[in-house]
């Protein structure tokens, strides 16, 4: 059928329904059109350039040729709380129940490079994740877990180098060489400045640490994903779907630029870059977002950075369902939200997925809630049919039009950030933060005006009893952790150590690290690894770096 004929029929249809729909009150925040047709998408002549085949540039339809027909995504549940021992038990439970990868949540002192006994850590130890003070805790965290078999993702950014070094050291103790270790460190400082808040050092030394890791891993830990460039937290902070991928890809551009400036060949590191998306409530928009993001990144890597290897152009992505969309009201409804978000991530072609638990607007999840969240992935994988064919929504007029729309909006933001001098400058000027805040405020005002419905919050509400049986992290965790740390620092053996740490060796390693920090041409990873192996604590190592690098001063704006 010719476009003219479709156009004519469409006009007839519009004339018929225009009057009919005028009777219905318009719901706000809807797509521009009520119906999408072949007129909204490019024809078959654009297919190979814009969509192509799975595993083929520009990877719109997925990064692997086989996608879930070869292997399902990794079901990677983010977990960690209290002590290393308690978290180790949760990890082993998840593996026993069909979890196929680990994902470590660290407490805030760990994420910001403070020991549990630092006054600033008071009240925070073991709360949002597990407390790791030294290699001794890391040994307990992975006790009876074969690092040669499992892949481990660690949500750690400013001190990512230190936690990676600890992981390498545990691997060595287990007899697994660094070259065999598989996993990911988040290591994405730019979104910490813009949206997540666990920064330590200013941008320049932070970017150096990141490129040091790229370099070190390309030679020593080749199967490791050296960064997870994260849109997740940008979305959680309130951005739109287009802003999520645009700001994140701009961050990615900044990292690639930094590594090239440090003398690396783009194809030597780009294949180990990975991404992290949010799976939000609007199922079809999310699917379009995943597809658009792959296309944008592929074009960036090919056209801007002249990458040669296909792997360097592939946007491989981990996904988490949207925590900020969980409601404290009628928490069981969250099970349904998470199921829909899971469907979006799977139809979007994610490589791995964490599903949130129903009770996370209230507290850390209980084991029962976590099990439901994992089962949700398994039901989508094995029962729903959504994983049966590759990129099942390709060719949907609506989804293709939305993929194009999100791509266009993303390029507009990326170009704007380029004009500001790149992501680092855009963050330092507060531009990205302001854009996110504006979107967050609009969302909240839409919820309060009723322009956006959240079931159980501003519609279909009920009086409820406060939920029972929430997980609580005991304050004694902090006391216990501090006691262990005091013993370690005093040179007493802890856990399975046969002898205590040698404080002279610790000091020598820290002095050596300090000298290396001052020499910009030195890669810090070997020095950090050496310090970690003496059982120098995370706080001791980060204090050395704080001394040389200074602290980041955040841009505060409203």
């Amino acid at each position, binding site marked *: 059928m010719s476009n003219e004929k479709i156009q004519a029929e469409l006009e007839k249809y519009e004339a018929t329904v225009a009057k009919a729909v005028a009777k219905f009150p318009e719901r706000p925040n809807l797509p521009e059109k009520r119906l999408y047709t072949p007129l909204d998408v490019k024809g078959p002549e654009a297919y190979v350039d814009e969509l192509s085949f799975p595993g083929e540039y520009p990877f719109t339809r997925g990064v692997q040729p086989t996608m879930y027909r070869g292997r399902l995504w990794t079901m990677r549940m983010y977990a960690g709380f209290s002590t290393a021992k308690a978290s180790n038990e949760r990890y082993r439970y998840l593996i026993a129940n069909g979890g196929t990868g680990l994902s470590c949540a660290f407490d805030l002192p760990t994420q910001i490079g403070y020991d549990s006994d630092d006054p600033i850590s008071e*009240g925070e130890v073991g709360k949002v994740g597990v407390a790791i003070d030294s290699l001794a805790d890391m040994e307990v965290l992975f006790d009876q877990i074969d690092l040669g078999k499992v892949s481990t993702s660690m949500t750690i950014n400013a001190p990512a180098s230190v936690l990676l070094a600890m992981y390498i050291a545990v691997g060595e103790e287990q007899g697994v060489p660094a070259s065999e270790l598989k996993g990911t460190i988040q290591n994405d400082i730019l979104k910490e400045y813009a949206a997540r808040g666990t920064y330590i050092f200013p941008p320049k030394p932070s970017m150096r640490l990141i490129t040091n890791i790229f370099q070190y891993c390309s030679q020593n830990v080749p199967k490791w994903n050296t960064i997870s460039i994260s849109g997740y937290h940008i979305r959680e902070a309130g951005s739109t779907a287009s802003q999520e991928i645009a700001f994140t890809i701009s961050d990615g551009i900044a990292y690639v630029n930094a590594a090239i400036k440090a003398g690396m060949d783009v194809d030597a590191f780009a294949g180990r870059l990975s991404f992290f998306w949010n799976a939000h409530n609007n199922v079809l928009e999310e699917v379009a977002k995943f597809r658009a993001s792959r296309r944008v990144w592929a074009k960036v890597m090919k056209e801007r950075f002249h990458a040669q290897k296909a792997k360097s152009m592939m946007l491989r992505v981990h996904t988490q369902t949207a925590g900020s969309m969980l409601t404290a009201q009628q928490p069981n409804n969250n099970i349904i939200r998470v199921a829909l978000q899971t469907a979006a991530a799977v139809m979007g072609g994610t490589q791995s997925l964490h599903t949130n638990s129903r009770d996370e607007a209230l*507290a850390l999840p209980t084991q029962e809630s976590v099990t439901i969240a994992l089962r949700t992935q398994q039901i989508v994988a094995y029962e729903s049919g959504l994983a049966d064919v590759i990129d099942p929504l390709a060719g949907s007029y609506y989804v293709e039009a939305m993929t194009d729309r999100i791509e266009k909006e993303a390029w507009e933001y990326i170009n704007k950030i380029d004009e500001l001098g790149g992501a680092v400058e855009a963050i330092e000027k507060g531009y990205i933060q302001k854009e996110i*805040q504006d979107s967050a405020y609009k969302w909240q005002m839409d919820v309060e005006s009723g322009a956006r419905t959240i079931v159980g919050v501003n519609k279909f509400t009920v009086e409820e009893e406060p939920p029972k049986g929430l997980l609580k992290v005991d304050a004694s965790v902090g006391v216990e952790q501090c006691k262990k740390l005091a013993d370690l620092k005093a040179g007493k053996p802890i856990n399975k150590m046969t002898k205590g740490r040698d404080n002279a060796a610790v000091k020598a390693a820290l002095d050596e690290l300090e000298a290396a920090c001052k020499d910009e041409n030195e890669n810090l990873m070997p020095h950090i690894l050496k310090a970690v192996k003496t059982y120098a604590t995370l706080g001791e190592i980060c204090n050395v770096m704080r001394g040389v690098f200074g602290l980041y001063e955040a841009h505060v704006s409203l």
Partner: protein
Amino acid sequence: MDKRIKVLVAKPGLDGHDRGAKVVARALRDAGFEVVYTGLRQTPEQIAEAAMQEDVDVVAMSLLSGAHPHLFPKVVELVRGKGMKDALIIGGGVIPETDIPALKEAGVAEVFTPGTPTTKVVDYIKANVK
């Protein structure tokens, strides 16, 4: 004419989640209050000092990390210690219902949990500022 109500929106502790704090801060500003936002990672001492320096009527704390049982009472104690007997101190964030009685006992006047409309916070402040 009454003096404009002045509010310090504060992020105690190490928590980096500031979407809620910023949305509330902006809603309070749009409601006609004068608003100062501390930014992230403030110690209770820094918050109390800022409250005094800025001579605020209200200290509104936001925390999603679970450290509220320790940090909220500490801020109350230090703010009161600065002689600010009448300052209205409120909190919000991911706070289980079961923790709220102890926080109120410690002097946190009201606790707002997820899903609260910003208008409710505005109305509460208007009704309770001395």
